[in-house]
């Protein structure tokens, strides 16, 4: 029988509270340690218990960016999982289930005869080895590995590394329970499973989500204070930094609301430290006024906005790219800001680290725009390169510039628009950071002449900052292509996955990823669009917001647009189909 090596998709489904995510994470780690690449994605409703939860882990020998619609293995913890997902199984695929809890009959499978059932007494085995009910997932993991004919040693190591802080007993319990599932399936009579894992080179890679990448980017970038109010899908940045506060000796503050969070952050920057806050659209709405405060007082500021489908509470645990225009134009009045939309964990890490340099050096607000898909999905990722961005201080007044002064001209006009700033406590640097329009010292000044100077000065900073930015567009794929996918943020991932599939079909495609939304890379985008044979705008929203920005700034329109707004990320299959039928 033909076996597919190192390429399969695994899915687990159950109720909220069944703890399925942990199991998927283990499998993803396993594959990654085996020298393969994984991606995982989960869907869960905005409920604590009940509701249908799913996690998918896809594994490949090549780097992968999104998962497929089809699955080869399904761990079904409840009936709903079978009903909803059996149809997605590839021919020859398996369903692992606990026959004591879930009896699967033909009706539940539709008319799929080509699916194999693998009943494993998950709970019984867990209990037998001294575990609890919930550890049935670990049994399922063992069963999965047995089917894949994957060596147990690697998973034993993972249990060791993960649980050793809790003691050797915990490590061994997990190892034992996993092995029970493994052995049970090995001992089953049955055909050989058409998919298997063969470990490869042991390049060390991480399995990481966008939020952790941002947290680590911040830490690398010299962050000292993070203030936030929890909001899905941004919450885990706060939780990760709260965990890491101790080892990194920084402060993670859970503020009373988002208005406090953004103002805490502004206060911290004003006093001289690198700080950030993070939220999703609803919380960002509450930070809007603070954004303008940072702008007019020329206080650096970094905000993460992890999007979810709106309006209002919307679909709290789903994904969308609906806030682009909102973020670009938020807050009364006119002022420059930087908006960066990373498209994978590596970009998230790098740009988070860079945002702190940018904000500090140019006295500008920087907004990092992600979404639920990037924030909470996990990808096998080469270890972050700390040298990609070097944290460097900037934008401060040197001692001789302020010492001994009565007042410091912190808003004096300069060619770059950036005026070096002292921080409170420094001798002679006295000035007023003012939300009212102000003169060079910060005193309220309502004159026409001063207003023009200050508006121009502030706006000039954005121009100055461009020099410090990396290329604002990222090109993926060959320069010479029949079709260019135009996208931003996390949808870059599905486009990257599509390139591979399209190439296999003989369609030469490439990608124009707009990494920096503001300052908008008008010239790059215009050139790319003019060169392209045909272009497809790919956005996870209903109005094609990036498309509108392109139209506004370049006058150009993509040949086609492929938009999705049901709260789900794109399937690579649908993007490939669309591209093929529009090329």
């Amino acid at each position, binding site marked *: 029988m033909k076996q597919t090596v190192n390429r399969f998709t695994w899915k687990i489904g159950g109720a909220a509270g069944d703890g399925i995510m942990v199991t998927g994470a283990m499998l993803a*780690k396993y594959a990654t*340690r085996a020298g393969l690449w994984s991606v995982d994605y989960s869907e869960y409703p905005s409920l604590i218990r009940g509701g249908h939860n799913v996690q998918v882990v896809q594994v490949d020998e090549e780097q992968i960016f999104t998962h497929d619609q089809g699955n080869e293995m399904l761990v079904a913890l409840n009936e709903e999982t079978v009903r909803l997902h059996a149809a997605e199984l590839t021919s020859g695929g398996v369903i692992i289930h606990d026959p004591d809890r879930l009896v699967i009959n033909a009706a539940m499978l539709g008319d799929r005869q080509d699916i194999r059932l693998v009943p494993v007494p998950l709970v019984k085995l867990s209990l037998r080895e001294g575990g609890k009910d919930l550890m049935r997932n670990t049994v399922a993991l063992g069963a999965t590995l047995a089917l894949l004919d994957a060596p147990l040693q690697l998973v034993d190591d993972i249990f060791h*590394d993960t649980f050793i802080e809790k003691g050797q007993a915990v490590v061994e319990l997990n190892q034992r329970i996993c092995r029970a599932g493994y052995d049970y399936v090995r001992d089953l009579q049955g055909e050989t499973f058409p998919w298997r894992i063969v470990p490869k080179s042991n390049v*060390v*890679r991480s*399995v990481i989500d966008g939020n952790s990448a941002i947290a*680590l980017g911040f*830490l690398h970038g*010299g962050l*000292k*204070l993070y*203030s936030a109010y929890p909001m899905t899908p941004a919450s885990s940045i706060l939780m990760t930094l709260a965990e*890491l506060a101790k*080892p990194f*000796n*920084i*402060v993670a*503050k859970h*503020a*009373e609301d988002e*208005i*406090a*969070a953004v*103002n*805490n952050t*502004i*206060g*911290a920057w*004003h*006093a*001289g*430290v*690198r*700080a950030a806050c993070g939220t999703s659209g609803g919380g960002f709405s509450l930070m809007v*006024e*603070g954004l303008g*405060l940072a702008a007019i*007082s020329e206080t650096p500021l970094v905000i993460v906005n992890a999007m979810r489908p709106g309006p209002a509470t919307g679909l709290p645990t789903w994904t969308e790219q609906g806030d682009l225009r909102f973020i670009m134009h938020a807050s009364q009045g006119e002022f420059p800001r930087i908006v960066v939309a990373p498209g994978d964990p590596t970009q998230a890490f790098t740009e988070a680290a860079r945002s702190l340099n940018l904000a500090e050096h140019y006295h500008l607000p920087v907004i990092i725009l992600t979404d639920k898909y990037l924030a909470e999905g996990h990808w096998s990722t080469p*270890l*972050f390169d700390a040298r990609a961005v070097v*944290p*460097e*201080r900037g934008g401060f007044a040197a001692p001789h510039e302020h010492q001994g002064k009565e*007042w410091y001209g912190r808003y004096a006009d300069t060619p770059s628009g950036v005026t070096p700033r002292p*921080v*409170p*406590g*420094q*001798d002679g*640097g*006295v*000035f*007023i*950071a*003012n*939300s*009212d329009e102000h003169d060079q010292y*910060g*005193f*309220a000044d309502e004159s026409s002449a001063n207003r023009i100077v200050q508006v121009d000065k502030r706006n000039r900073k954005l121009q100055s900052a461009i020099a410090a930015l990396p290329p604002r567009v990222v090109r993926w794929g060959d320069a010479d292509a029949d079709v260019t996918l135009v996208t931003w943020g996390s949808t870059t991932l599905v486009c990257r996955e599509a390139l591979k599939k399209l190439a296999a079909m003989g369609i030469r495609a490439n990608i124009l990823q707009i990494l920096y939304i503001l300052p908008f890379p008008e010239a790059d985008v215009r050139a790319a669009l003019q060169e392209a044979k045909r272009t497809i705008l790919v956005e996870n929203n209903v109005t094609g917001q990036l498309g509108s920005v392109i139209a506004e700034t370049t006058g150009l329109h993509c040949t086609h647009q492929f938009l999705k707004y049901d709260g789900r990320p794109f399937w690579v299959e649908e993007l490939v189909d669309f591209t093929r039928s529009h090329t």
Partner: protein
Amino acid sequence: MPASPQKKNADYNSGHFPTWCPGCGNFGIWTGVKNALAELGIAPSQVLVVYGIGCSGNMSSFVKAYGFHGLHGRALPVAIGAKLANKDLKVIVLGGDGDGYGEGGNHFIHALRGNVDVTYIVHDNQVYGLTKGQMAPTTEHGQPTSSTPEGALEQALNPVALAIAAGGSFVAQGFAGDVGQLTQIIKDAITHPGFAHVNVLQPCVTFNHHNTFSWFYKRVYKVETTKHDFSNKQEAFARSLEWGEKIPTGLLYREIRPTWEGSCAELAGIPLVKRPIENTSIAATLQKYT
């Protein structure tokens, strides 16, 4: 930093003379704040004053000291962020009753229980001055204002009672007409280790023709001249409810408990602002993701 030479009130003048209405209670608070800074010997560059938006907040242009004139209602979170960033800095917040108890009420109650060491002075003129005489949270029930021409329908907020109930560790009331006592209260507030709330009764001569200087002169009394025990929360609460015939001024409640920054393990040692940003190694943490 060299030892500060003897300071005086005028050292904190910005050179811009206040634009407040002649006779405004803000002058008394302005004097009290500068006196307190002078008497404590805190140099203009050693303190950050964060201001709200209002007539009160316009003081940002009249005081010489590092200043931050933020958003209406949002002075406290800026101040708290700054204090956590540099715990060696003295941080004082000045704002109006609309600013602090209306727009910013949520920050107020959480600052009280959070106990970050910041001094909060509220110019309580029981009206919105800068926007021309609308109702404030502290406007007395029944008083007509430009937004409530038939009289305020809400019961007035009692700032000191609220502060005590919300977990304030230092709650005092001053009067703009008694700069001596006010100076002392502000000094005590600044030296108090924790969040200190000072509600200052501040006549607005233009928009509040009810709670005038003379109205207050007839009513205020100093709690320090009574047997008031400011360490007793019950007693402080009872005192704080007094309004009308007798209005207490002075320190109403005090409790010494750890500050937020004092309890935060990560803030032990040098202030955040002095810590290097370079060479943070994420390697060990990244290892956990492999």
